């Protein structure tokens, strides 16, 4: 979210935070909390996990803020941190899913990603369905397509956040869409 007129820029706040101004850091993080939370919600349907992920982002920012340099917008740097937290989550989820499948889960147990009630039930149901497809993909594919379809970001931007070159990103996007298409045998990808 851009600063309101008269408010200090992100970059000014970061410089103050780097100098030890805790209030500036709070202001900066609150300014971006909606962005952080929305992005991470694309990867999970569990509020408890969402809390963990948001906190992980905050912790990484607190620990690494000194490394930010003014050669890129703070929002870009923060999104990179956020996306990497999301990617780590997808990797752990993929591992856990394998274990659970091998362990013959109790059929009476609640679904691990049961959706929360929402103000817009149709949107929540659709998000749950989209996630059920995307979560079957390998972690990098899942991150790539989640951000592309649900955040509307282009592949180049996503690749930049994940540290991939343009050709690598293009190839990964092509293969990821192929894999997704195989999960949707009677549907089309746009």
């Amino acid at each position, binding site marked *: 979210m851009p600063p309101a007129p008269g408010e200090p820029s992100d970059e000014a706040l970061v410089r103050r935070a780097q100098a030890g101004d805790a209030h500036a850091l709070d202001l900066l993080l609150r300014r971006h909390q909606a962005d952080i939370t929305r992005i991470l919600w694309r990867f999970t349907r569990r509020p408890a996990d969402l809390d963990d992920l948001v906190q992980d982002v905050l912790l990484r920012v*607190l620990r690494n803020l000194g490394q930010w340099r003014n050669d890129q917008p703070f929002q870009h740097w923060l999104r990179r941190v956020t996306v990497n937290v999301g990617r780590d989550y997808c990797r752990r989820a993929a591992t*856990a899913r394998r274990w659970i499948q091998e362990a013959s889960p109790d059929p009476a147990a609640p679904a691990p990603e049961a959706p929360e009630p929402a103000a817009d039930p149709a949107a929540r149901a659709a998000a749950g369905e989209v996630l059920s497809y995307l979560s079957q993909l390998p972690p990098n594919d899942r991150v790539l397509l989640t951000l592309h379809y649900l955040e509307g970001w282009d592949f180049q931007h996503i690749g930049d956040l994940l540290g991939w070159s343009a050709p690598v990103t293009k190839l990964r996007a092509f293969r990821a869409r192929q894999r997704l298409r195989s999960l949707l045998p009677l549907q089309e990808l746009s």
Partner: protein
Amino acid sequence: MNPTPPPSHWSDLVAAARRDGPPPVAFDRLLQAARGAAARPAGFLEEFTALFASRRALYAGGLATAAALALAVWQGMAVWDQAAPLADFLSATLGGLS
């Protein structure tokens, strides 16, 4: 003869999914806890996260149990003798609770 595929639903599905927003998070509380964690000895959170993530798989579907586990370990940190290896402490605590 191949069956006629149904019309594409993917675009509609994604468009609807984009409208879904996150539930409210207690951002200030999370920030406060993150500040506390950042002030803890280096390596604590990495150790905790790794161990907890591995244990958490055992509690899939039992969110309340997992949350209670995290809280118990967090509270247990108050009695951690920092001379002892952190991984040993966390492993013992998690083992005792599972």
